[in-house]
């Protein structure tokens, strides 16, 4: 796992990992440890863990199409006030506004498609870059 320091002002950490679940899990632990260190409450850590898992799963499955030779880039910055996380894949991107609403009656029976909805429900801000291959997640520390 490559760890690259970003500019000091941003206090962000960047990690580049293979597009595989075990490597991604280590990365998730690194982010959650920062939240623990900044005394984010359990409810915020649960929400961030969930959103991060959804972002990583989407990056591996849909962005990088399960290609283990591709990579995921994660940047994160955790302050006592907020956690800001970016997850980028090497895919072509997508339009998040065209993803079907999984909470509609006709979609409840579908096993997939709840990831983006959960990120939006559990984080305070969710945004995508123009290409749609990088998601930015923000969670405020509400103690």
């Amino acid at each position, binding site marked *: 796992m490559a760890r690259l320091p970003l500019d000091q002002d941003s206090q962000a950490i960047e990690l580049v990992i293979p597009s595989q679940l075990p490597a991604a*899990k280590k990365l998730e632990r690194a982010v959650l*440890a920062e939240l623990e260190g900044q005394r984010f409450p359990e*409810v915020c850590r649960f929400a961030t863990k969930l959103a991060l*898992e*959804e972002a990583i799963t989407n990056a591996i499955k849909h962005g990088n199409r399960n290609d283990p030779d591709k990579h995921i880039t994660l940047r994160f910055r955790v302050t006592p006030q907020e956690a800001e996380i970016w997850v980028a894949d090497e895919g072509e991107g997508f339009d998040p506004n065209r993803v079907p609403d*999984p909470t509609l009656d006709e979609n409840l029976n579908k*096993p997939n498609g709840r990831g983006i*909805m959960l990120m939006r429900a559990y984080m305070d801000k969710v945004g995508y870059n123009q290409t749609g291959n990088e998601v930015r997640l923000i969670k405020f520390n509400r103690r």
Partner: protein
Amino acid sequence: MDAPMERALRVDVQRQPDVVVVTVSGSATMEMSAELNDRLIETVQDPIPLLVIDLAELDFVCSEGLGAIVNAHLKCMRQGGCIRLAGPTKPILELLDLTRLSKLFSIFPTVDEAIKA
């Protein structure tokens, strides 16, 4: 600093006459949801009238884990059976409500109540 360790996923299957109770405990993470899916699908391989999934000890579930439960529900339903959920904790119940899966599944406070309903 390390994040607190999450509890490993555990899936226990108890077969009783006319009902199968599957106890899912620990964390159904992105890494472990495929295993949950396999265990649930294996459980509903043969037709069963009622499958109760005990969620009382489930700490965490991602969308893939929820998808595993929906998958089992579809297979069970096609064979004339049904799935009921029991004992979800507040965060898991909130997840089920937000996704509106609480509309798809009947949810009961305990396994006994789910069996007797």
